[in-house]
C-alpha cells in the first residue's frame, strides 16, 4: 500500500475514534449550553442550537457552588500536602537509611498496598464518628498526613513498587 494513502487512512481512523471519545463530553457541554425549555427537543444532539449561559448562572446562584469549590480546593491541597509529607519522610527513611526493623516495615507497608480501602470502610466510618468528624472535611485529609489505605491510588503505587522490569 502507498505510504501516503496509509497515512490518510490512519488520520481518518484517528478522527473517528476521537469522535467516539469526545462525543459524551461534547454532548454534556451542549446540554449545559442549551436553554432548559429546549432540553428535550434538542436532546441527543452534539452541537447546541440556541446557546445560553443561563444554566451556569442558575446553578451558581441556586446552589452553594462557591462552598463546594472551596471544599474541593481545601481537600485537594491538604491531601496532596499530607501525602507528600508522610511519603517523602517514610520513603527517605526506607530507601536511604538503614536501621533495625527496616525490612519488616518495608514488607508490611508494601503488603498493605494490596488491601482495598473498602475492607476498612466500615471501621473507618465508626472511627470518624467516634472522633466526631462525621459531616466534616477532616476525614478527607487528616489521615493523608499519616498514611492510610486509599481506594484509587493503590494500583499506581503498586505500579511504582512493582518489580516488572
Amino acid at each position: 500500500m502507498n505510504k501516503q494513502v496509509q497515512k490518510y487512512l490512519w488520520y481518518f481512523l484517528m478522527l473517528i475514534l476521537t469522535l467516539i471519545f469526545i462525543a459524551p463530553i461534547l454532548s454534556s457541554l451542549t446540554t449545559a449550553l442549551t436553554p432548559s425549555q429546549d432540553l428535550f427537543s434538542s436532546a441527543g444532539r452534539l452541537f447546541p442550537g440556541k446557546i445560553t449561559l443561563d444554566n451556569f448562572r442558575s446553578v451558581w446562584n441556586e446552589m452553594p457552588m462557591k462552598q463546594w469549590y472551596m471544599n474541593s480546593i481545601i481537600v485537594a491541597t491538604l491531601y496532596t500536602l499530607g501525602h507528600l509529607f508522610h511519603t517523602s519522610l517514610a520513603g527517605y527513611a526506607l530507601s536511604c537509611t538503614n536501621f533495625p526493623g527496616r525490612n519488616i516495615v518495608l514488607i508490611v507497608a508494601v503488603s498493605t498496598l494490596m488491601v482495598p480501602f473498602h475492607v476498612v470502610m466500615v471501621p473507618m466510618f465508626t472511627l470518624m464518628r467516634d472522633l466526631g468528624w462525621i459531616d466534616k472535611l477532616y476525614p478527607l485529609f487528616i489521615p493523608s498526613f499519616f498514611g492510610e489505605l486509599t481506594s484509587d491510588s493503590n494500583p499506581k503505587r503498586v505500579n511504582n513498587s512493582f518489580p516488572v522490569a
Partner: protein
Amino acid sequence: MKSKLSQSFPDGAWPYLFLLPYLIGFSLFIIGPLTNACIGSFTDWCLFRPERTFIGAENFVKLFQDESFRISTINTIYYVVALVPLQTTLAMLLALLVNRTFRGVTFFRNVYFAPFVMSLASIGMVWSWLYTTDIGLVNRVLSTFSISPPVWLHDPKWAMPAVIIASVWRNVGYYMVIFLAWLQNVPAELIEASQVDGATAWHRFRHIILPLLTPAIFFTIMIGVILGFQVFDITYIMTQGGPSQATTTLLMFIYKKGLTSGNLGYASAASLVLLIMMLIFTILYFMGQKKWVFYQGRN
C-alpha cells in the same frame, strides 16, 4: 557493643523519627480498622449501639445463604470478566495505533486519555444522560442505523452492559498509556531485523511485539481485576444498583448493609470475603505468571 551497633546503623534514631507519621497512620488508619473489621465480622456489631457481642461465624453463614449477596457477587464477576478483556484488548490496539511519529499524534493520545481524568461521578451523570431511552445520544445513533435500541439502564439485561461500556470508555486511555510506554521500549533493531527478514506486519506483531508486551498485559489485567472488583461510583451514580439488583456490585452490597442498614458486622464479613476473593485471584495470577509473561533479558 554500642559502638558496633552505631557502626552498622549510623543514623541512630533519625529513621524512626522520619517513619513516625507513617507508623501512627499505619496503626490508627490501617491496621486498627483492619483488625476492627476482622473482629467485627464475628459480632452483631450495629451502627446504632456501642456494644457488640460475639456471635461466631453466624454472619458468614447468613452471608452465604443471602440471595442478594449471591447476586452481587455474580454481578461483580460479570462486570470484571466482561470489562477486563475488553479494555485490555482495546487499550493495546489503541496503543499500537498511536505508537507512531505522525504529526498530531500527541493530540490523539491526549484525547483518548481525557476521559480518565474526569471524575467518575460526572462520567456517571453524562452517560446516564446519553443512555436516556427516547432522546439520549446512544439511542439516536442506534436508530439511525435502524437498530431498535434497548432501554439500557431500565432493562435488567442491558443495565450492566451499559455500565461496562461507560467504564471501558473511561479506562481505556489509562491502559493505553501503559501499553504505549512498553511499546516504546521495543528495541528498534528487532523491528529492523524482522523487516530485513521479510516478516509481515502480522508476524512482527505476533512474534516480536506481543511477547514483549506480555508484562504490560500481565500488569493491566491485574490492575483491571483489582479495580473492577471495587467498582462502586459509576454504578451508584448511573443505576443505584438497579433495576432489580441487576447492577448491585459487592461494594454496593457492603455499603447498603453497613452504612444504610447499619448492620456493620454483616458488612465487615462481606468485605472480608471480598478481600479473600481478591487475594486468591492475586496469588493464583502471580503463580501463573511465569507460564506466559516474557521479561526481556531474563528468560
